[in-house]
């Protein structure tokens, strides 16, 4: 799906984010965020809950528009694209939703075949072969005729992954791929992410919290907090870069730059002591 002619001059960066600023409901999500996602690597984006990691993915796919800044995917400025161009771009991006988002009307086979049916006029035989190959890749060829409600969470996520890669995208965005998986399913998904990246050379972006899992698979980690990238590096080095953010995040401390308390007034005042004393 990737158009080689339109490749960026800087061939090593697939997604380039510059000065991204987003304000949602009066709250600043991103404050002049700069971020480069290298081509052909597995990049993990981490951060405290509510920092807008999912929002960042939606910016990359053009589902949300930024208030300021520029996002270039494969050299194209997402904000400048028309609907058709945006859809064309999205055909080259796979997106794995946190809750899989399989279409409940269709069985597993049709879910994986859905993008093919919508965007190609391939003969039925070819669609069948392609879908079965992708299902084989995620180990669920035998489950082709099950309905989504008959699948476990891990299976559903693998089906969603098969659907995301059915077009052989240049980029896969994983939104919390490890949430709610038992260790076996987690390892299966990890293995898939690695395999897809290594065998097909698909650039992968992971949004997740599970540090151990990320360490196994990621080439590069960004730590986002307060709308900025506060730390980055490979899994080995980032934990030791010495910033308070990494210390709290990777050291697992309850209090730190991310406060334990939600911003509030003085406790004594809230309980009425200050007023009563005077």
């Amino acid at each position, binding site marked *: 799906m990737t158009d080689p002619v339109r490749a960026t001059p800087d061939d090593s960066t697939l997604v380039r984010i510059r000065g991204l600023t987003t304000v949602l409901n009066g709250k600043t999500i991103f404050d002049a965020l700069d971020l480069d996602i290298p081509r052909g690597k597995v990049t993990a984006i981490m951060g405290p809950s509510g920092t807008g990691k999912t929002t960042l993915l939606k910016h990359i796919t053009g589902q949300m528009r930024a208030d300021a800044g520029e996002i270039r995917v494969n050299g194209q400025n997402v904000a400048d694209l028309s609907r058709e161009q945006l859809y064309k771009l999205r055909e080259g991006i796979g997106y794995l939703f946190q809750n899989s988002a399989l279409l409940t009307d269709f069985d597993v086979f*049709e879910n994986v075949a859905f993008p093919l049916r919508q965007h190609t006029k391939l003969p*039925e035989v070819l669609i069948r072969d392609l879908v079965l190959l992708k299902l084989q890749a995620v180990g669920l060829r035998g489950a082709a005729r099950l309905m989504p409600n008959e699948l476990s969470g891990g299976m559903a996520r693998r089906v969603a992954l098969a659907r995301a890669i059915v077009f052989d995208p240049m980029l896969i965005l994983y939104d919390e791929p490890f949430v709610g998986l038992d260790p076996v399913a987690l390892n299966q998904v990890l293995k898939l992410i690695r395999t897809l990246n290594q065998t097909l050379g698909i650039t992968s972006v992971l949004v997740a919290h599970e540090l151990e899992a990320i360490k196994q698979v990621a080439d590069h980690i960004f730590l986002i907090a307060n709308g900025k990238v506060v730390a980055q590096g490979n899994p080995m080095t980032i934990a030791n870069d010495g910033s308070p953010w990494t210390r709290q995040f990777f050291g697992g401390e309850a209090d730190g730059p991310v406060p334990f308390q939600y911003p509030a007034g003085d406790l004594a005042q809230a309980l009425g002591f200050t007023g009563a004393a005077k």
Partner: protein
Amino acid sequence: MSQQRSSYAVGTGLFIVLGFAALAYLATQTSSVANVHQGASYTVDAHFANIGQLKERAPVKVAGVRIGQVQSITLEPGQEVADVKLKIDNNYDKIPLDSVATIYTSGLLGDQYIGILYGTSKKTVADGGTLALTKPAQQLEEMIGKFFGAGGVADNLGGTYSVKADFTNVGALSVGAPVKMAGVPIGSVQAIVADPVKLDAKVTLAIDKRYNAIPDDSSAAVFTSGLIGTQYVAIQPGGSPDALKDGDEMVLTQSAMQLEDLIGKFLVNGSSSSSSPSSDKKDAGNGKSSDTPAPAGKH
């Protein structure tokens, strides 16, 4: 999945076909004329001088039992005769040739149908045959005249005598309206003409000769049966020893009450003007006494 898809398509197709079938049914069976096939039948012609309100598909009955229906009603070209085709069930194929087909009305306001009165002939009407003897539809006006009056005016001409009465207002009184005494019809209105000199209405009443002892000081009033009913002439007998004779004129008359006057009378609770007190009482009884505010003294 493709099987699933085609089954959706088939089901949806069936649904669409069913919908359009229902539409076709509504449009053809319930709105325009369409013949419903109800077993084997044969057709008989009948010519009527007047079909009244007879409609296609109206029932054809013998002794009140339905044996078929009206298939079509057309006007005979060049003639003032309606050609009615009757579709009669094959079970009833022994209708005598001299049977009489009459257009009847079920009830006063009901629908019209064709009643067949069997004749005595040995021959029966065949498919495509004609019932020669018919009676046209009765017009409501004539029927009312018959009900309330003493029969048709022309029929009883020999048995009546004429009395004249002058009214300042006859309201909606029409020729043929009944003349009643004590609520019983004793004759009918023969003619209503405007008097060019006295500027009132001169009404000629044809009264049955049996009632030849009506006092000559009796009064005549135009009443309405009920609030919206037809109007008739009521005769209030007087006390004179002499009786009315043919050609006499009744002196005491009360004109038709207009509905507005009546209501006005009820509301002001008084008798503004009335030539005879008895008629006033009868009026109140005849009208809607229960609705009228009664005089305060009676309570």
